């Protein structure tokens, strides 16, 4: 596997992937605070275009999917379909407390408590709503994660770790069933 990463084309491709991450935002039942903070990132004050980040309309053109809000029951199937439409090397950023585990709307009757319940998530951003500079920091960590994934060939190495951590917690009885 190691010589593959040294060939010019893959090194160039990896460099390009880190230099131009395209983002698309999906509102899965959020209170809009996260959405306007994500849009505030594109604005002159925080301008993410200097890092090459573009907000794209169609999920087909996107690399990173930013999901805001705790997934409501009605949006769950749509979120799943949108996630499947994004072409490979794709990453998911779950925004704010709602994205992590439902936030202030946890365990309400029409909510699925967080993005993890529907699609695998790579990066969680803290805050309600997170400030634009925290969102930019999240995208940068996502790029570092992408660099590591490319070096180790895909996401399996860390998804295995996530699964083990989850199973050990379940065995220890901490995570509610």
């Amino acid at each position, binding site marked *: 596997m190691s010589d593959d990463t040294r060939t010019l084309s893959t090194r*160039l*491709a990896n*460099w*390009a*992937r880190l*230099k*131009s991450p395209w983002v698309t935002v999906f509102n899965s039942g959020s209170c809009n605070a996260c959405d306007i903070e994500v849009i505030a990132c594109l*604005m*002159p004050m925080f*301008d993410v*275009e*200097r890092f*090459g980040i573009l907000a*794209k*309309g*169609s999920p*087909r*053109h996107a*690399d990173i999917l930013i999901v805001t809000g705790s997934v409501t029951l009605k949006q769950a199937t749509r979120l799943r379909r949108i996630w499947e*439409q994004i*072409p*490979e*090397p794709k990453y998911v950023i779950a925004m704010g407390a709602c994205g992590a585990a439902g936030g202030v709307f946890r365990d309400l009757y029409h909510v699925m408590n967080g993005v993890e319940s529907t699609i695998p998530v790579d990066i969680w951003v803290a805050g309600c709503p997170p400030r634009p500079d925290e969102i930019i920091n999240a995208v940068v960590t996502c790029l570092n994660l992408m660099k590591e994934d490319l070096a180790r060939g895909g996401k399996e190495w860390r998804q295995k770790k996530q699964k083990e951590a989850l199973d050990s917690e379940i065995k220890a009885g901490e995570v509610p069933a």
Partner: protein
Amino acid sequence: MDAPLLAIYILIFPGFLFLAAFAFFLEFLDRKITARMQHRVGPPFVQPFADYIKTLAKEVIDLKGVDRKALDAAPLLAMAAVMTAFLYVPIIGRSPLAFQGDLAVVLYLLTLPTIILFIIGWLSRNIFATMGGVRAVTQMFIYEVPFFLALITPAIMVGSWSISDIVTWQQHNLWFAVLQPIGFIVALIGLQAKLERTPFDIPEAETEIVAGPWTELTGRRLALMHLALDMAMVTGCALVAAVFLGGPLTPWTITPDWFAGIVGFLLFLVKTLLVLLILSSITVASGRIRIDQLNDMGWKYLASAALIQIGIVLMMNYLWVGA
């Protein structure tokens, strides 16, 4: 032109490599100008190149029942059309491949990308894409006629159908931008519509029909099609710069031949960037108009302005030649 020089001419200098690099540069400049006018910092220099490589490396998603080969071939066809059109635009001096009627060939080849956008829209079986494709073609009918008229009037005045002759004619007397101001304005607006930039980016209206014909393009198809349209921008700007702003030749002749080539190339660069600056400022300063508004604006104002321009030119020819 013997074979190796021709090969270099086609492949390296004004051919594929230079055109691709120049396309990236112009896209970078365009995005940087719009960003600076919007009080933003704008992308780094290498951004369009990084976008291109990244989209090349992305996974290509094919829908059920979509003709894969046709969708793969379409972007290549668009790029080929635009590259051949660029060969006839004079860059250093007279373009070696110039022949009578290359103006018509270039104009025809520049309309191919829009038709291919329609085909892509139709092929990708997505309602947004089809809507975008239909809009692209309707928009083409509106601005195509005035754009052609605006570019033909200089040919009538010069009396020849080759761009290089038009350029040499302008060497000894006024530029056509000064002689035919209406034609210059109509050509600029037509070019803006051809490149589908903001006042006329109706097919790719991001806020109405997701991404128009581009919705289903992923991976290398998206990269190639995006590059093709960037090249169309280069060719369009270069064409308008050559026909209306005198292209690469200077009124006084410069002794050493290679030095004249360099000066000509720099002049070509400056004029193309000037045209690009005008286009970018139009993009920044206006919102998108609807297809029916474009329809009556196109036919009422653009077409009639172009016809008036032709009328004036014919009269001048008649008086001039007559006297």
